[in-house]
């Protein structure tokens, strides 16, 4: 996720300005986000059809705790992006590291704790299928998001971003917030909607 040099864009016509390529990058990323969102919508619809007015028997406190971790990580990701946009590299590095730590806690909370404590397995009927496919697909996105954040943190440490040119940071932030938005709905669908089965 290094910054493209103004004179060597591979896909932009020669002489395309940084702003032009930035606009194309944004459009491309948002198209990806929307297409990826369709998969999550499909999983949510599967939950509504298969579980109806019931919900899996899960630990409410743990669900709230991991949700809080992800929400707060989004806050720090936003701070990291704002700090980079204003050229404050130390604050950017600090905030993105906090985001990384909180995202890792979320991942461990879901995969390492909730999956182990859930009273059903992936093959235990609709409940298991819905819960593990929804959380599994989301956790995979969190995992790839963490890799992306680490790459961006490392690039930032090496001084590859500036206040004027930091598309990599913006892209990582959009992807991370998207993961957060998806969880807002999954949290309701898995932990809060309906009566425990």
């Amino acid at each position: 996720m290094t910054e493209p040099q103004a004179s060597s864009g591979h896909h932009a016509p020669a002489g395309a300005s940084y702003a032009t390529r930035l606009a194309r990058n944004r459009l491309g990323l948002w198209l990806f986000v929307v297409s990826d969102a369709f998969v999550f919508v499909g999983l949510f619809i599967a939950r509504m059809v298969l579980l109806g007015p019931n919900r899996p028997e899960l630990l409410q406190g743990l669900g709230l705790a991991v949700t809080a971790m992800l929400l707060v990580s989004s806050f720090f990701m936003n701070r990291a992006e704002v700090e980079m946009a204003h050229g404050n590299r130390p604050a950017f590095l600090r905030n993105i590291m906090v985001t990384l730590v909180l995202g890792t806690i979320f991942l461990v909370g879901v995969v390492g704790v909730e999956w182990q404590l859930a009273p059903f397995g992936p093959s235990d009927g609709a409940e298991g299928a819905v819960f593990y496919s929804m959380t599994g697909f989301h956790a995979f996105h969190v995992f790839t998001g963490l890799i992306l954040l680490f790459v961006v943190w490392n690039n930032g440490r090496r001084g590859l971003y500036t206040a004027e040119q930091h598309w990599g940071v913006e892209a990582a932030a959009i992807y991370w917030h998207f993961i957060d938005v998806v969880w807002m709905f999954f949290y309701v669908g898995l932990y809060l909607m309906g009566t425990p089965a």
Partner: protein
Amino acid sequence: MQNKPVAPVSSPHKYELRTGVWVMLLLAVLTFGEFIVGVIAPPWGGALLLVAAFKAFFVVKDYMHIGRLFSTEEEKH
């Protein structure tokens, strides 16, 4: 120990940081509200989804800056 010069925080910078804090507070309050409703009145699933959509709106607008997608001005970044 070398003292690094501290750059003054500009107004747009302050505004963006403050917006981030307000959105975070809003998300915290609404999520806790969802939790309470989900525990006390689970059948209110539709209302909980509306609250989730409300939260998502603010994240998409203020954290993901969807407005930049439609911006015609030559921004930095």
